[in-house]
């Protein structure tokens, strides 16, 4: 094939003329030459790049040409390519010989790094990367089994995973002994823990006193400060959130959520680490007997995990209460159901009632007034059972079933009972 590119002015003219009867076929032919898509840029006969500004864009649904300059809508392949690029844009950082260690003990509630943990790791990265000449490494001490696989993305350089049964549940003494062993062997410059109840708040205070430090609690801001022993100054909340305490950063700090931005530009190595010497087993005077089954009806609505809420569409209230009992859910109600006297006032969900934080919210016969939708803003999954497919609750819901609520609840109860019965038979 010759190097010279041949032009066909007639075909180009047809390709430019949308109204030409041969327009489509010519476009396709040009597209084949251009390699899949109509070429908007090509090498001209004189070796100059030529651009055809009319070739970009596409014909919209109304026959009007639309130009999308983001490049996102140029086809599935192109979009996939940009996503790939976005994933790869994280810079890989490996710290071989760290000048010091910043130890972080994440909560790992539910086996994964929580938002609070990620903020804390962002704070640890700030401490570690302050001096680019002598970078520190972030060491994470993780207790028990976990399901997290993106420790590197969260900014962890070294990972010490202590998966022993002794650390499961509420075992502050065993965990404290392990952290003391880490202190003896690795001597981190900073210890950072999340100031979250029953997690880092408890363990961090124990650790600080074991190390003989006076920790900063409720830290929410960190600034470099030459005059301080560690080179940092922190601002901490005190006196029931009514006071800001500015003090030099001590070795042990317990930080609040949103104390720093989580790491999102770099990827770290998360090299597994192990302690050379065995951790001495601690004498445990606290024995964890496990979780207690609580009556869901007694759980406060604001902190219930699973709520079955009834509204104007519920006609069979006995069936509703029975379903809530079988499902093990806390009962809620819309304002109408409360006003009509079917439910107690303290069960009302919404702007004038309780703002709930449930993980799963099952709305039965609730059309979704804006005041009600405000109240369920922070719910994770909303399931709606309703007769009206156009109501606002259906728009909010993650799963909506259109139908008679009583029949669906009865079927659901039957299903749950049947499953439970089956399990009992198998066991």
């Amino acid at each position, binding site marked *: 094939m010759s190097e010279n590119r041949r032009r066909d002015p007639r075909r180009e003219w047809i390709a430019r003329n949308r109204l030409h009867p041969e327009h489509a076929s010519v476009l396709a032919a040009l597209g084949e030459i251009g390699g899949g898509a109509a070429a908007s840029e090509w090498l001209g006969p004189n070796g100059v790049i030529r651009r055809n500004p009319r070739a970009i864009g596409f014909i919209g649904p109304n026959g009007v040409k639309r130009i999308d300059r983001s*490049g996102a809508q140029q086809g599935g392949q192109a979009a996939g390519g940009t996503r790939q690029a976005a994933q790869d844009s994280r810079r890989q950082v490996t710290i071989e010989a760290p000048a010091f260690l910043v130890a972080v003990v994440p909560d790992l509630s539910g086996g994964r790094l929580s938002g609070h943990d990620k903020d804390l790791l962002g704070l640890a990265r700030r401490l570690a990367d302050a001096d680019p000449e002598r970078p520190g490494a972030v060491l994470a001490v993780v207790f028990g089994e976990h399901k997290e696989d993106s420790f590197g993305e969260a900014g962890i350089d070294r990972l010490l995973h202590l998966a022993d049964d002794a650390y499961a549940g509420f075992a502050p003494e065993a965990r404290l002994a392990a952290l003391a062993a880490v202190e003896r062997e690795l001597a981190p410059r900073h210890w950072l823990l999340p100031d979250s109840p029953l997690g880092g708040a408890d363990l961090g205070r124990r650790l600080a*006193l*074991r190390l003989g430090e006076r920790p900063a609690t409720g830290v929410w801001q960190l600034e470099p400060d030459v005059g301080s022993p560690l080179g940092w100054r922190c601002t901490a909340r005190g006196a029931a959130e009514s006071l*800001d305490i500015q003090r030099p950063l001590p070795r042990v700090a317990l930080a609040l959520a949103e104390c720093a931005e989580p790491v999102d530009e770099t990827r770290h190595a998360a090299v597994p680490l192990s302690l050379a010497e065995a951790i001495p087993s601690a004498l445990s005077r606290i*024995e964890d007997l496990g979780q207690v089954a609580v009556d869901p009806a007694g759980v406060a609505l604001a*902190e219930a995990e699973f709520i079955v809420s009834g509204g104007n569409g519920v006609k069979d209230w006995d069936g509703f209460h029975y379903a809530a009992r079988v499902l093990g859910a806390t009962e809620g109600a819309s304002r109408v159901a409360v006003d009509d006297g079917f439910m107690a006032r303290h069960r009302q969900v919404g702007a004038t009632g309780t703002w709930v934080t449930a993980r799963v919210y099952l709305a039965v016969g609730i059309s979704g007034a804006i005041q009600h939708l405000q109240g369920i803003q922070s719910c994770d999954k909303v*399931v709606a059972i309703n007769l009206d497919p156009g109501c606002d609750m259906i728009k909010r819901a993650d*799963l909506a079933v*259109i139908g008679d609520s009583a029949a669906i609840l009865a079927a659901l109860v039957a299903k*749950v009972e049947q499953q439970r019965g089956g399990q009992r038979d198998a066991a």
Partner: protein
Amino acid sequence: MRPEQQGVEVAVLVSVGRHPITGRARRADQDARGLELALGLGHQLPGSRVSLLHAGVLDEASEASLRGYLGMGLETLTLLEQTEGADAIPALAEHLAAAPPQLVITGARAERGEGSGLLPYALAERLGWPLVSGLAAVETVENGVATLLQALPRGQRRRLKVRLPAILTVDAAAPAPRQSAFGPARRAELEVTPVAAEPDRELAQWRLAPARKRPKRLKIVKAASARDRFKAAAAKAEGGSGQVLEGVSAEQGAEAIYKLLKEEGVLPR
């Protein structure tokens, strides 16, 4: 009843609280809950003795708020009198070590001063006693072992066994305190013992200021193109990706809901 069950000796550490809106001295909410828990325990185990202990300054405002605890049904309160700005931990540790009770109950954190919640941990470390935080209830005390319920998030509870003597801290999950009666509060006695005061030098060096509002975190959009940035700025938070099942039988609908509940793991075992 066996002699082991003949009651326990409970010391409740109380502090001077601060009303969150007016800033006036009051009985601290968490400490009052601790006292309520102790009084409930006294009711449950006859022969239990509940004592109140406070270390700090004695002035008009603090006396009024300390009498708020006495109005809940106690006759005396031991006050270790210190000067302003003194460290309460050594005084309390000494007092508790001299006559060790079986249980020490206190609120999780103070409403004034540093309010770091370190005091129970410091006492536990000094006395070498176990500490349980976030207590919801004391179930039983027998043979020197207490069975406790610890409050977990989402209204869940965990049962723990702890060997006595122990320090327990309570927060908002503990039973709400009873009202304080004015007359008994006036008639009750404050047993004042002056103790050596060790000034808290570190705290004196820190800069304390009324709490500033924390900045709200901005939603940072890292978009390569203007279109993505505009979309992120203009987009509503609505998900809108919900699945709608229309025209299905009740069984099919129930099946879909059951699957979701199972995935979320909210159904009881």
